[in-house]
């Protein structure tokens, strides 16, 4: 008898949750639809200049034709390739630098002011120098994507290393562990959640670096399309590129979120 009412209460709770989820979803969809509809109408009725602000229907048409004739696919591929690579290099390099800093306290003290300056510096301002040094190819753009996330990753991961409870190291030292063993068994795994949380931040940062890089040099990619569209006054192209960037950035973010969940489940 009692368990029946318990079950009943639980069912109620679950359906309440479901209902709440539905309401939120309906709101989200309606905001999106009304935004697009309003934009379309405003453009059709010349409330806004359709030449500057384009319209959803034109953007969709453009995207479909450009994908149809294959000319868009290369641009998307190039940008995605650069972003993923920049993201990976930035993150992994940041973790490696943080580890070297941890390996020598004196080294980290010496490097401290330089890291602070490099972190405060707006990395995209280095763009021209990178291009001069590395040429106008992919290499420069990927470097832009990596450089923008590498310093912040280093700082976040290094400070996480230092916050690990020293008693874990004590346990290991009582078994006679070396500093490297302490790092491998305690410090690195204990900071794994912190490293994973930098991933999400770095996805966003890498997009900034890559798009700015493409603004500056490239002949291909979504960033290039934005600049090109701007120069030939084709704002539908600019908007279409923006929409694609938004979609792919969101997809990448979601994938990283999935990987994050998986890593946390399988390592902690």
């Amino acid at each position: 008898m009692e368990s029946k009412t318990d079950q009943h209460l639980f069912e109620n709770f679950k359906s309440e949750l479901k209902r709440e989820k539905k309401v939120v979803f309906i709101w989200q969809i309606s905001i999106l639809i009304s935004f697009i509809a309003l934009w379309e109408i405003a453009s059709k009725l010349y409330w806004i200049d359709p030449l500057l602000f384009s319209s959803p229907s034109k953007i969709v048409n453009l995207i479909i034709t450009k994908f149809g004739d294959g000319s868009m696919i290369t641009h998307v591929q190039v940008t995605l390739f650069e972003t993923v690579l920049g993201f990976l290099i930035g993150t992994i390099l940041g973790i490696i630098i943080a580890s070297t800093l941890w390996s020598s306290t004196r080294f980290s003290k010496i490097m401290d002011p330089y890291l602070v300056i490099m972190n405060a510096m707006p990395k995209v301002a280095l763009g021209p120098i990178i291009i001069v040094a590395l040429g106008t190819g992919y290499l420069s753009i990927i470097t832009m994507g990596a450089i923008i996330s590498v310093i912040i990753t280093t700082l976040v991961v290094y400070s996480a290393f230092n916050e690990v409870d020293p008693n874990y190291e004590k346990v290991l030292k009582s078994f006679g562990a070396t500093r490297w063993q302490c790092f491998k068994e305690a410090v690195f795994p204990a900071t794994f959640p912190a490293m994973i949380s930098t991933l999400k931040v770095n996805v966003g940062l890498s997009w900034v670096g890559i798009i700015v890089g493409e603004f500056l040099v490239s002949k291909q990619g979504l960033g290039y399309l934005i600049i090109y569209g701007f120069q030939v006054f084709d704002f539908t192209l600019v908007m279409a590129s923006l929409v694609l960037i938004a979609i792919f950035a969101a997809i990448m973010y979601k994938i990283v979120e999935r990987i994050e969940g998986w890593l946390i489940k399988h390592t902690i």
Partner: protein
Amino acid sequence: MSFLTLDHVSHHYFSKSGYTKALDNISLSIKEGEFIALLGPSGCGKSTILSIIAGIMKQTAGKVLLQDKTISDSDLAIGYMLQQDYLFPWKTIIDNVMLGPKICKTNSVKTKEKAMDLLDEVGLCDVADAYPSSLSGGMRQRVALVRTLINDPKVLLLDEPFSALDYQTKLKLEDLVSQLLKTYYKTTILVTHDIGEAIAMSDRIYIMDANPGSIAKVFEVPLELRNETPFLVRRHPKYQLIFDKVWEELDKKAQEGGALK
């Protein structure tokens, strides 16, 4: 022959704003196979002594010798069970226990079997694949004990190993540990706040003084009590006698401390 010797050991903790003298001129010597207990008020430096013997910290003055060698030169395994369990939350129970063999590279099927046997002995073999977060405080403490024993250390340093256990489990585990240590002829230092536990398990009791930490008095546990199991010691007629003496000493310390403030 002395197995483990502390010769006029002092220790200071330094920080930017000043220093604390945690230990002042501690001298003691322990024979192989002996079991001694450290008893004293909170903050008198008990954990500090253990950390120094374990080689985790270096004393600021004096000498610590293990079989006439300094701790860093000696290659005898020392098992140190810290005051809190510090199980690694990202490792399963069995992996936590196997940490010692992994560090010392003696990891094998045999050590794993031994780990399972030891877990079985403390009643935990069915949680071997669980994570520490799903264990109670007492269970975690038992795992930490097994982790300390797995490398077969000749010297054991136990920092309040039974503090998170219920009374019954504690008595049972005292018996188990005491018997294990006697059979394998281990040298042990036990830190505890429980006078009864100190008497029941050890051969000698050092009462410590705080500010700075020093040894105030030493009590020999009567021979009749040493060979009994901890559970039976508590019922022995002589138990109450020595309990009262230790109590009196600690009480005196507490009152002196109170009078000073």
